């Protein structure tokens, strides 16, 4: 049974219509999937089918441990968004609920190669001269 209803699909399609460049979604699950892994994979399959500029790669966290290490994936389900390079965007857990908005908007931003930030913010970010680790922890409400 599809996770996205027709109405959801049209909104995702509308949001993704501005994509001009390829986006690769790298998803890590495992051979015997937990429920959240299966849910995430199903959701990403449905989303990637809504734009011909999105490619979905599904990897086994155990069998492809070198690739998982390369992307800094230490838990699953994990979703990595890649454009012409790895921007460091990771989703751990199911990007459902309110975070689904963020997932789709991030795919759009990567596909447009446009972070959707003001010049002022970009100027400030350019001043950062050492690695910074940001991690947002959310919970369903």
């Amino acid at each position: 049974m599809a996770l996205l209803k027709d109405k959801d699909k049209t909104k995702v399609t509308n949001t993704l219509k501005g994509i001009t460049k390829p986006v690769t979604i790298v998803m890590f699950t495992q051979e015997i999937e937990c429920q959240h892994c299966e849910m995430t994979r199903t959701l990403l399959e449905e989303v990637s089918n809504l734009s011909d500029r999105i490619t979905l790669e599904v990897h086994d966290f155990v069998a492809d441990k070198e690739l998982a290490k390369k992307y800094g994936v230490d838990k699953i389900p994990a979703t990595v968004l890649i454009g012409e390079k790895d921007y460091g965007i990771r989703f751990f857990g199911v990007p459902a609920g309110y975070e689904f908005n963020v997932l789709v908007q991030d795919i759009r931003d990567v596909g447009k190669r446009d972070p959707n930030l003001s010049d002022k913010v970009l100027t400030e970010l350019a001043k950062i001269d050492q690695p910074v680790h940001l991690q947002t922890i959310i919970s369903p409400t």
Partner: protein
Amino acid sequence: MDFPTFSIDTSLLEEATEPDPEFTYDLLIVGGGPAAMSAAVYAARKMLRCAMVTRDFGGQIRETSEVENWLGFQNINAKDLADSFEEHVKSFDIPIKLGTAITAITKQGGIFTVTTDDGTSYHSQTLILSTGKHHRPLNVPGEKELVGKGLAYCATCDAPFFKKKKVVVAGGGNSAFTTVLDLLKVEASVTLINAIKGWQADTSLQERVKQKGAVTLLDNHEIIRVEGSDQVTGVVVKNRDSHKEDKLQADGIFIEIGLLPNSDPVKDLVELNEHGEVVVDCLSQTSVEGLYGAGDVTTVPHKQIVIAAGEGAKAALSAYDYLMRKSLI
């Protein structure tokens, strides 16, 4: 597998509103009649990134009262049918530019550009032209000035305004005779004026009018002027044999002398026939690659709702096949 606990929020994602002038759509559908609406449904179901540009929804269905040949309905109110078509299209969240006329359609570098009368341009890889037809004008003095002041082109819309009044109907075909019947329902006193010799309407329709008896039939007379300042007061007619002119008093005039295709925006782009209709083949393809035609604006004969809807579906599927074949989607 079902996921009963799964839910998503899409409140921050984009609703379909107006088309984006910065975006190149897979398909632009120009027009809002049954051909255009059917094309939109088929395009949406193929997940094409498509948008519509139209003045309004419904096309000529909005100018009739009842439809008796739409499969599945022995009789359906025309407005209800048009509304249901529109609702179906809008269920897909297709971006729609409404309320504007098309001023130009061009193709450059494989991309179509549709420009509207507010100066906005929209772009696409393929285009379906389904702009329908409009009423042929008499092109006589007084016509333009008196539109809406007793001079009308749509009996379904305006006949009730002429209850028990004197009305002239210009024309000799089916639409003219149907207009006469609509006016007789509101007890108008009607004079039907045909510019050529011999009535062109179906015999059965002519018989129905003649049986009413309350109609003056004036054959072989040309309307040379519509008179009135703030309101129609009469028409001047000329006998085409004797050249004798007569003035007829009238409170209104309905012009029912046929329809002209709305092909002006593409007249310098695609092949048209001698009637100005867009020439299409059996795949709805025009003379320009990637440009498809559907409905009354095309050379496809028999201008019917069901045919227009079928042609619209075919045009959308042809556009989809073209985009696939060319690896454009």
